[in-house]
């Protein structure tokens, strides 16, 4: 298994008569893309826009942000389980439009959202400067599903439209010479010649069963996690389209973009290549809906890591709300019990800003904790000069000057590890 990323820098996106990459400028034939997306007859229309990095523009409500990527023929498929059969991801060459992003909007009218604008992409101003997404060139896809369809069908169509757009755009780079080609080092439990380096695994949650997933929700290889037990994955499967975030996020964002550029996995790779550690692999797991679920999953995740990867140490992240912290900590505690050192990443939930309210678990050995903030970071953002809305009714609600919290600006909080907002105890 070996993944190669062929990076093609993109510094601007414009509409044109033929979709192609002209140097670092991406030109998009809107009509061709629209026809491709509307081949899905669940959609009745789709709005396409471009937004420049740092532009005075507010976009929302955001469904997902995805890096434009397309697989070279003969490689593993694009988004297996969503656009293709669920064959193993992470093999061959992936063309990447570096510096670009496809931002997919939810179609929510004011009535649907009770006037709330959901998560917004803030491209400039006091809040935007803290989001890693504000420095990217965005291509906005706002699909409008047929109104009579059930919500889960609309969401499924929205997911699929975003993925199709991403692949379509990145295919423009096929055949072009990439500026940079990265082939990841071989990693895994059996890699030789790394004696003396700490063997490190990643155990990451990809879903929380606090909410039942929709029947046709895509989370991992197109499956919705029903009946899922912890699963051994090669790191490249995370990076190359096997996993996408669920429809429901709470306490911290997760976007496909940061699966493709997973902050923990890419950092483990970097240090593996620098000879600081030996990256032995990953376990994908879920947070349970009840205690029995939790016990089963935590034990299976810890055992899988212990027996299959034989790590000296593991980093763990959670997905979703407060309860998944328990699943993560129990798993970490089981690993510690097996002699595997751990560090975990948690989200602050103490609304009264007192540490007594911050307690989520208390295992003496789970003592290396990264503490992500967000509870009391609120900006008063100025009126936006330009707005791109998922539904025209939301335009004014998005445009106006308003108070907006860290959790509502996509990219500020991120439970995949991209956030730089820390909760500091003092």
């Amino acid at each position, binding site marked *: 298994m070996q993944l190669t990323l062929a990076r093609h820098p993109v510094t601007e996106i414009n509409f044109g008569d033929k979709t192609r990459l002209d140097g670092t400028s991406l030109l998009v034939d809107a009509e061709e893309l629209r026809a491709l997306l509307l081949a899905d007859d669940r959609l009745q229309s789709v709005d396409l826009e471009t937004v420049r990095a740092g532009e005075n523009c507010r976009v929302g409500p955001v469904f997902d942000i995805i890096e434009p990527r397309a697989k070279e023929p003969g490689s593993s498929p694009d988004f297996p389980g969503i656009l293709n059969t669920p064959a193993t991801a992470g093999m061959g060459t992936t063309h990447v439009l570096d510096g670009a992003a496809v931002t997919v909007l939810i179609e929510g009218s004011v009535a649907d959202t009770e006037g709330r604008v959901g998560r917004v992409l803030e491209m400039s101003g006091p809040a935007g400067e803290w989001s890693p997404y504000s420095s990217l060139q965005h291509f906005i896809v706002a699909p409008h599903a047929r109104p009579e369809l059930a919500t889960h069908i609309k969401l499924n169509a929205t997911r699929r439209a975003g993925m199709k757009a991403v692949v379509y755009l990145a295919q423009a780079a096929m055949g072009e010479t990439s500026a940079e080609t990265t082939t990841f080092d071989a990693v895994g439990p059996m890699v030789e010649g790394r004696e003396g380096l700490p063997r490190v695994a990643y155990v990451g949650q990809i879903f929380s069963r606090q909410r039942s997933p929709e029947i046709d929700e895509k989370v991992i290889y197109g499956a919705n996690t029903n009946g899922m037990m912890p699963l051994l994955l090669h790191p490249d499967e995370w990076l190359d389209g096997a996993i996408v975030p669920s429809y429901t996020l709470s306490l911290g964002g997760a976007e496909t973009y940061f699966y493709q550029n997973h902050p923990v996995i890419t950092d483990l790779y970097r240090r593996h290549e620098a000879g600081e550690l030996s990256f032995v692999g990953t376990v994908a797991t879920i947070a349970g809906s009840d205690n029995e679920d939790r016990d089963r999953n935590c034990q299976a995740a810890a055992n899988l890591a212990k027996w299959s990867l034989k790590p000296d140490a593991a980093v763990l992240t959670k997905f979703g709300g407060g309860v998944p912290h328990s699943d993560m900590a129990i798993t970490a505690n089981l690993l510690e019990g097996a002699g595997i050192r751990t560090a975990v990443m948690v989200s602050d939930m103490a609304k009264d800003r*007192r540490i007594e309210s911050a307690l989520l678990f208390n295992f003496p050995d789970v003592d290396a*904790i990264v503490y992500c903030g967000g509870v009391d970071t609120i900006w008063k953002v100025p009126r936006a000069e330009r707005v791109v809305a998922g539904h025209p009714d939301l335009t004014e609600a998005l445009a106006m000057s308003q108070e907006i919290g860290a959790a509502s600006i996509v990219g500020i909080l991120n439970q995949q590890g991209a956030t730089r907002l820390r909760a*500091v105890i003092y």
Partner: protein
Amino acid sequence: MRIVHYVNQFFGGVGGEEAAGSPLEERAGAVGPGLLFEQMMGEGAEIVTTLICGDNHAVEHQDEVVASVVDKVKKARAELFVAGPCFEAGRYGMAAGAICAAVQSELGIPVVTGMSEENPGTDLYRESLYIIDSGRQTAEMRGVMVKMADLSKKMMNNEKIGSPSEEGYLIRGLIRDEFVEQTAGRRLVDMLLAKVKGEPFESEMVSTFFEPIFMSVAVKDISNAKVMVITDGGLVPKGNPDNIEGMAATRWGTYNLEGLDDLKSEDYEISHGGYDPKFVQEDPHRLVPLDALRELEKEGAIGELHNEFISTSGLGNPLSNTRRMGKEMVEKVKEEGVDAVILTST
């Protein structure tokens, strides 16, 4: 910069334990440790007044001493108030803490003190004050004064106050958001590598603990007891009449069960954002088991079911809030003459 300094009878040179009853007195200029503090603060800083009080007097007449100090600090037109350091002297720490808290809240000027972790004043005032960790050794006076002066200068200049380990103050137990250079993912791997190599690392979250809550004594005769259900699963009548928030609820509601044998799905909804509510929505008895309790009532297994239940949402709720609501619920339970409560959660 005008500074007022508070010390006890010992550091003020009045006397030892035999002088612990001496009343509050005021002296112009710096006295004892104040001379050192003034020197550390550098040019332009002046302790205009030193206030000295016996430890026993300060604790026994606390309200009076606090009010008097606040008044004197105000009259001295102080821009900074300093007390101690108190090391592990308990009465000194309690008095200094109370005085500092009052000066801070009433006069709004920067306030710095010093105590040891073990000083009882630390537990009482650590959340509201910056207390430099003085340790227990009075021989460390010089080092402690350097930290107190450095922190004072930062507060005077409205500079950002760093972490407890950077500044040397005792952890206050509070949380604030801060943007940092490295992503969470990177810090996570950094911390793990330090831990696995046995190198020192600083967890970003400290372990906290709950006060133990002891089980009440068993109900003597349940067959004669009045039983009530309280739930934090967020079951409320359709329309959520009390507007109980689905997260960090600030309210709780009391809902009637009189004459009901059955909770119908269509009459209720769930205000709780932290669990999958579909099973409770399908059959509310899964959270508030009215059906089973009515049977037990009929069988005589319980005396009677109280004719209402209490509900709130137990999600993401700070302890300061839940403690208040818990106390309010206990009042209600007592008022109603309830003997036993069944608590259901999710």
